[in-house]
């Protein structure tokens, strides 16, 4: 037993900061999520409700985060924008991860023509600038977050596909899987006990990065006026709208920036530092 403790003490030559980072990441993310989803319950203000008397008013007890340039509640808008970004990011990641991972397993498992066909498909998406895809889709449906969602999913799935394919290819030929097959276990068991436990943590990492990417992309597209349109609260759009008032009301402009910052930072922390 001394052996085990000793060698792990030795191999851990660099301090294990990753778990701490993850804990911080999950905590921050949880707080942001709580803020986004609890605010409408505690503070049921319509994020598009304007009161032109309060334009750009500073935070106060009656309006904790102040008002924007149309006298809309920043608190309500920020929470709504976070819900939109989080929801879109979550949905995109989910719709990218599930088929991506399944196709990856399928390709590695079946090999041959299936593998080659799927890999070529992956290469096509890889070679095409993802942005183009998103831009075109947002041009088809200019007002709806739907286009953003489909576009981002289409860009993201490839990552899961490649990852699961590579992992599955190694695992499928491993002695462990060979042993399970000899012992009489079928594909369902192999996926459940061999592949999934190996793939899941990677997927978590990629998903966290993917969500961060999605949130950044949505904000960036909002900034170039593609994607969702006013008056829908969206973080990038809020920044664009509040940008001209950066001198008059810096607190207003800072809020969406801090929101994006915290979201992306927490997701990056969750993803850990390895999988860039």
């Amino acid at each position: 037993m001394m052996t085990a403790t000793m060698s792990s003490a030795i191999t851990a030559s660099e301090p294990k900061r990753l778990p701490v980072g993850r804990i911080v990441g999950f905590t921050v993310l949880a707080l942001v999520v709580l803020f986004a989803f609890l605010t409408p319950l505690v503070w049921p203000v319509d994020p598009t409700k304007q009161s032109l008397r309060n334009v750009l008013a500073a935070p106060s007890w009656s309006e904790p985060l102040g008002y924007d340039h149309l006298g809309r509640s920043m608190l309500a808008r920020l929470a709504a924008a976070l819900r939109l970004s989080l929801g879109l990011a979550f949905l995109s990641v989910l719709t990218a991860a599930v088929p991506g991972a399944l196709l990856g397993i399928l390709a590695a498992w079946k090999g041959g023509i299936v593998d080659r066909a799927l890999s070529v498909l992956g290469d096509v998406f890889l070679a095409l600038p993802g942005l183009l895809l998103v831009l075109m889709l947002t041009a088809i449906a200019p007002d709806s977050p739907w286009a953003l969602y489909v576009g981002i999913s289409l860009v993201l799935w490839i990552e899961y596909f490649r990852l699961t394919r590579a992992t599955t290819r190694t695992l499928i030929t491993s002695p462990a899987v060979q042993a399970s097959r000899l012992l009489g276990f079928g594909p369902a068991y192999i996926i459940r006990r061999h592949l999934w436990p190996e793939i899941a943590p990677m997927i978590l990492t990629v998903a966290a990065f993917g969500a961060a990417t999605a949130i950044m992309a949505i904000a960036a597209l909002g900034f170039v006026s593609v994607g969702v349109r006013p008056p829908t609260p969206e973080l990038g759009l809020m920044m664009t709208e509040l940008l001209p008032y950066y001198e008059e009301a810096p607190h207003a402009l800072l809020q969406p920036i801090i929101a994006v910052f915290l979201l992306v930072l927490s997701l990056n922390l969750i993803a850990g530092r390895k999988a860039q």
Partner: protein
Amino acid sequence: MTRVLGYRLFQALLVALTVGVLTFIMIRALPGDMAYRIAAGRYGYDMVNTDAANAVRTELGLDQGGTTALGQWFSDLVRFDLGVSVVSGEAVIDEVRHQLGHTVELALAAVLLSLLIGPPLGILAGLRPGGVIDRGLLLVSSTLRALPHFVVGLLLIIVLATGMGVLPAAGHGEPQNLILPALTLALGLAAVSSRVARDAMAGVAGSPYYAFGRTKGLSDAQVLRRHGLRNVSVPIVTYLGVQFIYLIEGVVVVETLFAWPGIGHALVHAIFARDVPVIQGTALVMGLMFVLLNALVDLACYLIDPRRQAA
């Protein structure tokens, strides 16, 4: 190497094919009347009206079938003819060349700057994992990665241009105009490439051959030079290939913010105006550029890494 380049060629063909078909289908699926959209792009919102749209429809033969137009595009493509912008009437190839030049200039400057910033810092951090530089760099790169491009760009403008007045805020034409947009992109790139370099360096510095180099009697500098840099540069250069995607996406935002007349900016406009030939041409060129850059990355890796030459 031939195999790798062959694969890239195959990728290039795939790009041409999919860009053609995909943009075509999508453009056909775009809502609204194409003739009106083009007229709006051509004549502006004050002048777009039904007369203008009808004139556009007749002039461009928008009533012809989709497949005919697609076939035309492909047969022209074989002759390297990308057609004429339906908005400006210029040859697409000329427009794209003009804009691409600016984008390439910007992207190249950004990549060079990021290479000057990111990897050296990352290598320093990777030599002492957990040290002060490592922790400091982690903090800075995490912060930069969590800030959208345009926020970084704006901060730079506000500090360096309107605040200190040492650099122009936006525009292009003068050499100084390049610095801020390039720096904006470079900071984003370096935030990631420094981490890649750091992880690679930490891996190399912890490797048995690095330790062996030291016990052979080489000094720290000698070990770094002989056994560190080459091994670290392979993952860094490989990662450059991934960064080009990021670059293309960053370019769209940075170009509009800094009024840089590049291809990303043009693409957004072309989509608004439904300039199908320009969209196709731009997307095609962007896709091919991406493939070409990755081929260059392959080539660079091949030159750096003797294992690839031996294989």
